[in-house]
């Protein structure tokens, strides 16, 4: 009697009989889908669905009380003439251009600092990471106390050098910079851990070999560590850019510390979208702005992925 060996089940069955429904390959595939399903459903419900709905709402004028009027692309056309939008784009770009590189350099510096073992290294790493475990709202309130005009700890420290009257959150020329600094302080420990993981993956032998060849510390970093750290750096940079534009840190801080002021100097795009939706009830326009921001981010990250071969850089 002929038998057909099923590589998945290795169960003998009569000739001409239909293959079993539940062979191993299918069972494994189904198990895989089952494992992915909760995440997939969550993404569909809480990310995919709102994105599609947002796109739909962007074609309507919504008054916030259940009234919807189809306006086609009018909400998108309105953006070109909206000077406040462009002001908020400028704020967001300034924040991003300052936050991403400075935040990266600080985090990398910290990662290099705590890379090697020394007494108390665990405590130092924990201290750097600690700000990240605090709620951003609490971070904002804490910094608000520190930066109080005249009476705050920072003003008191700066008084001897004649800067005691500096208003870090009330002066339009300083407020955004203050938010960048607080954002970096909040996120540096998290990015430090990611970069530390990348550094730990680089075999020490490479640096030792370079040392034997007479390389200086900078040359070792520039020609050994930096190239091998590029995938990790790419991840940190992409995350930072996306976080900056979407206001992952900045929105909470703006909301708690400045409400977009002083004089609109911290009104980022995401805060502007929030105001359009919840101050003016312009849900349609807010949805259109959101759609454009998401489109921009998809294009930007897609380009970055394309140029860097998905963050692998030199993959064939």
């Amino acid at each position, binding site marked *: 009697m002929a038998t057909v060996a099923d590589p998945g089940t290795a169960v003998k069955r009569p000739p001409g009989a239909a293959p079993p429904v539940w062979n191993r390959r*299918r069972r494994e595939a189904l198990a895989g*889908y089952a494992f992915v399903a909760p995440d997939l459903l969550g993404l569909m419900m809480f990310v995919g669905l709102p994105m599609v709905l947002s796109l739909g709402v962007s074609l309507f004028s*919504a008054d916030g009380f259940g009234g919807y009027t189809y306006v086609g692309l009018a909400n998108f056309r309105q953006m070109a003439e909206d000077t406040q939008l462009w002001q908020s784009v400028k704020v967001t770009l300034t924040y991003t251009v300052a936050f991403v590189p400075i935040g990266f350099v600080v985090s990398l510096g910290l990662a290099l600092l705590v890379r090697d073992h020394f007494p108390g290294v665990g405590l130092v790493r924990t201290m750097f990471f600690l700000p990240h475990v605090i709620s951003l709202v609490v971070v904002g309130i804490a910094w608000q106390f520190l930066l109080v005009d005249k009476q705050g700890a920072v003003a008191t420290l700066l008084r001897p050098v004649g800067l005691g009257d500096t208003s870090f959150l009330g002066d339009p020329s300083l407020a955004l910079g203050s938010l960048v600094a607080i954002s970096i302080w909040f996120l540096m420990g998290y990015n430090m851990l990611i970069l530390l993981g990348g550094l730990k993956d680089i075999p020490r032998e490479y640096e030792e070999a370079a040392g034997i060849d007479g390389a200086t510390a900078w040359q070792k970093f520039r020609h050994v560590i930096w190239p091998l750290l590029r995938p990790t750096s790419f991840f940190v940079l992409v995350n930072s850019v996306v976080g900056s534009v979407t206001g992952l840190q900045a929105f909470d801080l703006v909301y708690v510390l400045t409400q977009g002021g*002083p*004089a609109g100097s911290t009104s980022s795009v995401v805060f502007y979208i929030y105001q359009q*939706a919840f101050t003016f009830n312009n849900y349609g326009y807010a949805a259109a702005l959101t759609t454009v921001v998401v489109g921009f981010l998809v294009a930007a990250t897609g380009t970055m992925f394309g140029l860097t071969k998905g963050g692998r850089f030199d993959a064939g």
Partner: protein
Amino acid sequence: MSAFERVTRRSLLRGGAVVLGSAMAAPLLSACGGGDQGGNPKELTFWNFYGPNPQSDAQSKWFIDLVAAWNAGNDVKIKLHYLPVSEYLAGRALQTAFSAGQGPDIFLLSPGDFLRYYNGGVLTDLAPHLKPDQIADFENGALDTRKVDGKIYGLPMEREPLAVFYSVDAFEQAKLSEGDLPKTWEQLLDVAGKLTSKDRFGMLFETIPGYYQNFTWYPFMWMAGGSAVPENGGPGFDSPAVHNALKLWQDSIAGKIAPRKPLGDGGTDTPANLGSGFAAMQQTGIWGVSQLAQSNKDFRYGVFPLPVPEGGTYTTSVGGWAFVANANGANPEAAATFIAWALGANDAEGIERGRQWNTVVKANLPARTSVLEAAKSAGAFDDPALKVFLEKVVPGSRGEPRYTPEVYKAVSDAIQAAQLGGADPAKAAADAAAKIGTFLKGYKGAAML
């Protein structure tokens, strides 16, 4: 072939798309269907920022007792829903609830936000539930910003005028006395300069952008003879009066006699700023009296009316929240009946309820004559600060204006640009006037007052 055999990546994605599509359809359809709120017509929700709050203070208790008294005698029950004041004032809970068709049956509304909800068609006319003598009992002008075409869309629970609070200790330290209390804008800047020290500001104006900041700036605009929208054939926002009012606030910042960033909750927070010694004078509302009584019992302070510009006429802005009923709620008639009973009843119980709220658990001026008289009889205005409010601050006052969010934002941008951004007041006013003018051309809602 069984269904499971067809489980492929492609089919899974197809199935996912169907699920996503179905899920999308329902909210989209309901969203397009207009705003009906549903809910339970026998149990109405009342959103507020007083009670029942976690601190269980006297104001919270007043709300709880109010609802308990109503619930004891009526089939339709009221259920309080508390939101922290910061969330209620600047948050998104109320707006989100309405946009989702889940707005509360009863809620608190300030004049500054009246037009958003009136123009949205969600306010119920309360007039049919009030007798003529009940309406007449409201103080002159107290209902103006809540009325449209003779209909009444909100009953005020209080009147909250703005004035300047000052620290007696700070005045004494600066060798100043009551006779030095500023009466003009020029004197205000001068005295504030004398009160400013290395760790104290002489004067505090609100600097946080928002409805409250506008509310506190309007009196200066009015006193100089300006207006946010054209009134009585006037020029509107781009006028010398507005430029001067913007410049006053700008000068206080440029002269470093007022903070760019107040403490605590900002200009509404008297204990955090005046009480802590951060500022020697603070423009704030009558609620500062009860705030200081609760937080800084031994703090020595006084109150004086807002200074007037050269050649100007004194006025101040009078705020105050109102109970309003959601026209799309589960039972608008019952909600309106409750509000008329809670804040309009002029029997002994109703008057006592008003007196308790306005002068016992909180410091306000009552919005109704009968309550004001009862409070006077009970000696409520023997308190020196409240006496100043009653006799010197309120006469000549004007209700907090009701403008649309678009007008509010244009004014807010001008204040921020001039006060903190150092912009030329004339240019800031001209920019705002252009935005207001463009908006007014297409505006079809209720009159702005």
